[in-house]
Structures are given as structure tokens and as C-alpha cells.
């Protein structure tokens, strides 16, 4: 068994599954392993199956992994529900006091009953049975119990040293019991000193946290949002951090207000954003158009979930692409970024503010539940790439040359379509930001020539858009076979590409981290020589494939690999589908 272990804890919602998973994941992360988590939960508060997957390795991970080697089951449902994921020889730890585990079939799985409750009582209280199970898991991984102490202290320290010791004891009880009764082991390799990033420098973060941090680092000082799964954690992060750095978070009465507030704050000159998920995003469509028409910068983060409508509110999907590209009546210019990783959630959210101000338009960042809520080890946040470029922002001295009411906020003559902004408070900068078609100074107009000029002005803004977002290319650039994706699927697709490579199938992996403006030239370049491409998307219609068809064509060369049941892709299904679609033995 190599250094790549899948562990999962499952039980009924509201029973502490999340915190169990958190402690385990953070512990391994702190020990220096790369961890990648995935939370399965339901849209109700108590009851219903929930589970928390943690994959660990001494190598960088990009996906939560298909297999489970160790399953901590607090009920029979957990066993039945996750049985198909169990690796050959996997261990199931269950509480003998709670139920008698039944194997659904006769596969080679070790059902290891541990008296979790009893051992927890031995340590001080039955509520620590989860710690007992973690202790047993640590035994299975052949790791040191003591290395969990910092995590236990962090978690329970404020309850006093006794509680800390009791929890350490619970871990110990589980460890010892398992060690005495069972021989199955899935060891994690010892951490080498010479891995490319210092383990102690690594970070444990989710996409949602990274978006929050990216916003703050990018200069955002105003977040208006309305709670919605799976985006609310962005609000939480901002609530905890923004006020320390002069920022404000407003819980709006609804998403319409949230979006209009973000526009208002940006108009006033503060970098501001709103974060939401599908239903809220749909409610923002009218205001999105206002941002476009009034040329007000604004950043909107949509952490996608399974749609349509209320859909599956606790499941992942990439199905808001069409709305991000085409939502709102009439025609506006917009930028749509689709970060591939947690690091990119940070960087592209920060960058979104530069783009929004530079081009004076709405920038949409499309994340999703899978990326947003999967905490994972990353080597670092690309802090050195953070910069603040505020675009054409006037100073009072610039405005002095205008008399009152002569400054043209919407001067249509500018070659690049981007006319300098004044901010309220500045003398001689008076203008009206508005959703009506307008003259240079921001008055409503209805004459044909001005209308044409203003439409033309806005359209010019993105004509020669050049930016580091766009396309990310991995693998064999000469291969006639390509995997194509956008956003959060990069990790699983990249692992699939590497696996295919190992199986002798060289493919290239073309991944979009920006879909609007569409990186036409880059994409065409990337597609050179490609005969068959598999477009991998977490939705049921193939929205990216459609977009490619619209923008450049390739109708006959695109195959689709779609998943839309709410669970994220497994590595295996992409490999299988690739092997079906790609002509075997294409080597060159």
C-alpha cells in the first residue's frame, strides 16, 4: 500500500461527524501529510447520512480520491452507503456498543468492532468515542499518537488541561485496543525532510476560505451577502477577518440587496463584492446588468451547487456557467473566472478586483461546492502575485482641469473603451452612474448616435483582453487527444491524465480558468493537432462544450463526459470514459 490513504468517517447528521473529520484531517496535515477532504452532507439538520472523507499522502494531492481504506462507521447506513468505495482489505471501525456491523457482501473487508463508547467512558466520557476511533485510525496508519497533541490542545485547550488529557487518553485507548485486537494496517510513509515545501509552512484551507482571503488581499473592504449553502463560509471568513483590516460585512435582506449594495460600495470607491450560490445568483441578474451598463466595477462569487432551482443544495455542480455567461437581459461586457484550485480561488478572487476596476465591469468568479467546502493542504498562497491595479481612477488634481459638470465619466471617444472614473467626494467629478443609456456625463439619452457610440465604447473594453487567466495546459502538448475542463475539475482531471499516461495513453489537459472573454487564440493554439477531445463537466448538458462550439466550432471533435448527480467526479470514471473515447494506441 503506497502513501495514499483514504479515510472516512460517517454517521447521522448532527452527531459530530464534521468535527471528527476535522480533527483527523488537521492532525495529519500538521504532521506534514498532504490531506484532501470532501464532506458529504444533506439538506436537513439532524438525521440523514453524512460522511467526511480525508485522503492523505506525502505527495501533493489534487482530489479527494476514489478509495476508502479506513472507514469509521457510527451506524450501519455508513457501511452500506460507502461499501462500494472500500478498497480491497479495507478496515471498518465500528462501535460494538451501538450496532452489529453487517457486510453487504463477501468482499475482503475487515469489519473491526471496537467498543468505542466503553473505551471513551474509560477515558472520561462517552462523547469522546470519536477520539477513540481516531486513535484506532492512527494505529492503522502506524503513526505517533503524540503528534496529535497540538491539535488536541488547539481544539480543547480552552476547556482546560483535564479535557485535553482525557482526549489524549481516548486516542490512546483506541490506539491500544486496535493494536491488541486487529492486524490490518494502512501505514502512511514517514515524512521526508526534503519535500519541496516545508511541511510547517503548508496551509490547510478550503476554496471558500481562499476566496475570502483572496478578496481581502485583493483590497476588498466590503462584502454584502445573504446566507446560502455552500457560499456562507465566505461570509464567515470575512466576518472574522475583514473588521481587523478596516473592512465591513453586511448581511443583506436578500441577494438583490446584496448585489446592489456591492455596486453602491464600488461606486463610492471601495472594492466590494457579494458571494452567493445559484438561487441567489439568479436573483442578481437585473443588478448585474446595472453594473455592466453603469460601468461600475463589482465582483460576484457564485459557489455553484446542484440546480436547477433549490435543486440539491448540499451537492456540487458546475451548471451556472450558462447563466454567468448569458444572464441579464440585453448585452453587457463581463469577465468570468473559473479558478482551478484553492490557490487560484485566492489569486483569481484577488485579481478579480483588479480586472473589475481596470475594465469597469462585473467580474464573476465561479467556484463550486466541491472546491468551496473541501479543505486541503496547499503549499502556499501566492502572496507574491498580489498587486493592486486600480485602473483609470482620477485624482482631484486631474479633475481640476474640468470645470463643474464638464467631466465626462462616460466619454465614448476613448480608444480602449475605458473612460476614467471619478469618485464621490471629488470636486468637479460629479456624474450619475446609471442603467439607462447615457451621454458622456451620465445623462439619459435616446438619440441613435450616442447610443451607438456608447455600445461601441463598452464593446471595445474587452476586445484585446490579455491576462494570465485563460488556459492552463498540462501533459503532452503534441497529443491528438485532449481532456478539456474548467474550474474545480482540474485536480481530478489532472490525476486522470497522469494515470492515463501511466497506462500508456498520452493526452493533453486543456483547462480554462477564464471563460469570458473567451481565450480564443490560446484555445485554438492548444487545440492544434487535437483530433478527439473529451470535455469533462459537472453538469448534464455540457455547457463548456457548447461554449466551445459557439466560440470556435470543433463540433465533430468534442466528446462529453458529464456528471450531474451531485457527487464530484471519481478519478476512475474519467479514466474509463477516456479509454472509451480516445482511440487506443495513439502514440506519436
Amino acid at each position, binding site marked *: 500500500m503506497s502513501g495514499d490513504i483514504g479515510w472516512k468517517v460517517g454517521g447521522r447528521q448532527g452527531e459530530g461527524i464534521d468535527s471528527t473529520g476535522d480533527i483527523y484531517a488537521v492532525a495529519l496535515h500538521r504532521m506534514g501529510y498532504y490531506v484532501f477532504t470532501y464532506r458529504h452532507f444533506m439538506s436537513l439538520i439532524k438525521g440523514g447520512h453524512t460522511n467526511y472523507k480525508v485522503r492523505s499522502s506525502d505527495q501533493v494531492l489534487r482530489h479527494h480520491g476514489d478509495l476508502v481504506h479506513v472507514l469509521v462507521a457510527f451506524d450501519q447506513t455508513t457501511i452500506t452507503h460507502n461499501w462500494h468505495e472500500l478498497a480491497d482489505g479495507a478496515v471498518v471501525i465500528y462501535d460494538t456498543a451501538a450496532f452489529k456491523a453487517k457486510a453487504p457482501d463477501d468482499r475482503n473487508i475487515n469489519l473491526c468492532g471496537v467498543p468505542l463508547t466503553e473505551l471513551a467512558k474509560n477515558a472520561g466520557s462517552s462523547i469522546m468515542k470519536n477520539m477513540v476511533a481516531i486513535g484506532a485510525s492512527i494505529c492503522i496508519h502506524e503513526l505517533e499518537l503524540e503528534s496529535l497533541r497540538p491539535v488536541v490542545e488547539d481544539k480543547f485547550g480552552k476547556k482546560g488541561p483535564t479535557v485535553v488529557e482525557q482526549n489524549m487518553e481516548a486516542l490512546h485507548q483506541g490506539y491500544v485496543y486496535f493494536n491488541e485486537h486487529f492486524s490490518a494496517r494502512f501505514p502512511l510513509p514517514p515524512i521526508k525532510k526534503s519535500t519541496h515545501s516545508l511541511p510547517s509552512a503548508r496551509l490547510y484551507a478550503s476554496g471558500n476560505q481562499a476566496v475570502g*482571503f483572496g478578496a481581502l488581499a485583493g483590497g476588498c473592504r466590503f462584502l454584502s451577502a445573504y446566507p446560502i449553502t455552500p457560499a456562507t463560509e465566505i461570509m464567515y471568513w470575512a466576518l472574522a477577518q475583514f473588521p481587523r483590516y478596516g473592512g465591513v460585512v453586511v448581511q443583506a435582506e436578500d441577494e438583490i440587496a446584496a448585489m446592489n*449594495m456591492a455596486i453602491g460600495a464600488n461606486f463610492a470607491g471601495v472594492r466590494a463584492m457579494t458571494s452567493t450560490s445559484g438561487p441567489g445568483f439568479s436573483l442578481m441578474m437585473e443588478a448585474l446588468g446595472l453594473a455592466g451598463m453603469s460601468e461600475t466595477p463589482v465582483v460576484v462569487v457564485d459557489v455553484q451547487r446542484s440546480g436547477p432551482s433549490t435543486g440539491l443544495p448540499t451537492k456540487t455542480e458546475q451548471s451556472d456557467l450558462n447563466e454567468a455567461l448569458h444572464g441579464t437581459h440585453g448585452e453587457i461586457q463581463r469577465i468570468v473566472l473559473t479558478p482551478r484550485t484553492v490557490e487560484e480561488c485566492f489569486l483569481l478572487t484577488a485579481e478579480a478586483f483588479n480586472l473589475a476596476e481596470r475594465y469597469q465591469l462585473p467580474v464573476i468568479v465561479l467556484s463550486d461546492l466541491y472546491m468551496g467546502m473541501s479543505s486541503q493542504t496547499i503549499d502556499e498562497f501566492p502572496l507574491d502575485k498580489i498587486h493592486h491595479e486600480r485602473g483609470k481612477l482620477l485624482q482631484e488634481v486631474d479633475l481640476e482641469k474640468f470645470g463643474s459638470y464638464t467631466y465626462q465619466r462616460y466619454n465614448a471617444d476613448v480608444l480602449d473603451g475605458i473612460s476614467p472614473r471619478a469618485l*464621490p467626494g471629488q470636486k468637479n467629478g460629479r456624474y450619475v452612474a446609471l442603467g439607462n443609456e447615457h451621454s458622456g456625463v*451620465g445623462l439619459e439619452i435616446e438619440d441613435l448616435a450616442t447610443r451607438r457610440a456608447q455600445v461601441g465604447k463598452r464593446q471595445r473594453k474587452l476586445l484585446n483582453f490579455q491576462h494570465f487567466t485563460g488556459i492552463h495546459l498540462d501533459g503532452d502538448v503534441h497529443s491528438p487527444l485532449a481532456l478539456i475542463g474548467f474550474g474545480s475539475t482540474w485536480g481530478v482531471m489532472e490525476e486522470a491524465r497522469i494515470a492515463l499516461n501511466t497506462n500508456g495513453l498520452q493526452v493533453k489537459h486543456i483547462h480554462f480558468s477564464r471563460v469570458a472573454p473567451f481565450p480564443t487564440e490560446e484555445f485554438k493554439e492548444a487545440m492544434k493537432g487535437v483530433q478527439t477531445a473529451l470535455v469533462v463537466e459537472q453538469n448534464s448538458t455540457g455547457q463548456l462544450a457548447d461554449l466551445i462550439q459557439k466560440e470556435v466550432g470543433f463540433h465533430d471533435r468534442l466528446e462529453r463526459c458529464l456528471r450531474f448527480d451531485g457527487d464530484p467526479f471519481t478519478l476512475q470514471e474519467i479514466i474509463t470514459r477516456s479509454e472509451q473515447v480516445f482511440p487506443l494506441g495513439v502514440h506519436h
Partner: protein
Amino acid sequence: MSTIADFKTEKPTWCPGCGDFGVLNAMQKACVNLGLTPEKVVVVSGIGCSGKMSQHFGGYGVHSLHGRSLPTAQAVKLANRELTVFAAGGDGDGYGIGMGHFIHAMRRNVDVTYVVMDNHIYGLTTGQASPTSDVGHETKTSPHGTIEQPIVPLQLAMAQHCGFVAQGFSGNIKQLVSLMERAVTHKGFSLVNVFSPCVTFNKVNTYEFYRDHLVNLDEEESYNPQDRLAALDRVAAANNLVTGVIYEDLDRPSFAEQLYGYPEQPLTQVNLALSEESYEEILSSFR
């Protein structure tokens, strides 16, 4: 010192005689009287004839969406606390499609002055029933007379503990100016509902009608605008046909006064860049 001229822009496009002229004048005069300069005043308006206020008033403006002036205005104020911020719109805009924001703005109590040009009709869309149209009013969308109970802005505002509630009339600019001044001076959200006749589409709620019916509470000595329940009674008794400062809560803290960590300087002046130490502090939360 600024003058009225500083707060003027191009000639308003309202119909001759429209009540909104009076509202514009009163806003301009109040700003002059308060010693404000145009660049420090922002008017955020909705869509409607009344929504053209942001264009006609000579400060910075946002001519936002139908019903959405309040969220926008609150954010402008929070973003730059040195600005004086008005939200302005119509009865359809504010009490129809915008009703939710209105109630929540009163809860939040951000220091914005909300001016509603209440003409009991949809003006810009040429004469449909509005949420304040009287029962029985025949309009293009209520050919047999409106049957919905009209919105009662003052009562709603007081029920929701709005900190400053006033009502004026375009036909009494002098009073209106004073109401505006007091509203702007009030710390926190303030409502100024103005009977602003639509001379083109509303032949019921005319200047004459208001001249005949309005009671000026500012002139009623016994009236105490700090007694919420008594004010509610008085307003109800007068069938809402009153003007003046109707209710004022001098103690209610504004949003800014309560907001955790809200900086003294405008958010617009906060440094975008984080220091090394700040980064380190944040990064440590990810370890």
C-alpha cells in the same frame, strides 16, 4: 459656501407643475442651508419620474434600478461615511417593488435620508395604480377602482421603529426644506414621505386636495413627535393626511455606531494592501 446654483444641473424633464420640482428645490435648499458642498452629496434614485432626481440634483448620483435605491444608498454611505447620502424615488419604486428594502433599511438604521415622492400613481409608466393609490381610484390598471388597501408609510415606519419619520408636501416648500434639514441631521435612517402631485396622471390627489386636507403637525403645539404610540394614533386619526416631523427617536444608535470594527475614516481611505504582519496573522489561521 455653496449656493442653490451649485446643486443645479440641466433643466428637469418633469411635466410643468409636477410636484417633484418642489422636492428637488427643497433638497437643494436644505443642502445649501446645511452648508454642504455638491461633491459630498450623493443622491441614489430608483426608476420612475421621481427616479430622475439623481439626474436633476447637482451632486453625485446613482440612477439605480426600480425599487433598489435603498440598498445602493446604504452601501454608498457605509463605504464613505463623509458623504451625505439621499435615497430618492417614487411610491411604486419604494413601497411597491422596493418594500422589502424599505423595511430592512429601517431595521439597519444606516444614516441615509430617504425621500419618497408619493404621488399615489405610477407616473413614468403613464398612470397605473400604485401601492399608495386610494381605494376606488380608477387608473389604467384599476379601471373599476383600486381594491387593495393602500400602503400607510408613516404607520409602517413607526411600527418598525424607524428613527425619524416625516411627511411633507410639494406645495409647502418651506416646511419641506426644514423636514429635509432635520432628516439629514438625524443620525441614522430617516424617512421623508412627500405628497408630490402628479399633475398628468393623478386627478384625485391634487395640490388642491392636499391643501384642503393636510394638517400640519409641526404647528400643533400639543403634538409630541417622540411618543411613538401617540403619534401612531394621531396619524391614524388624521387618515395619514398630516405633515411635519411625525416621529423622532433621539436615542436609537445608528448602524455605524454599532458596527463592530467600523473604522473612523471612510472605507475608501483604508489601505488596500496588507502588511507583512497582517499576512502572517492570517496565514497562521490556516496552519
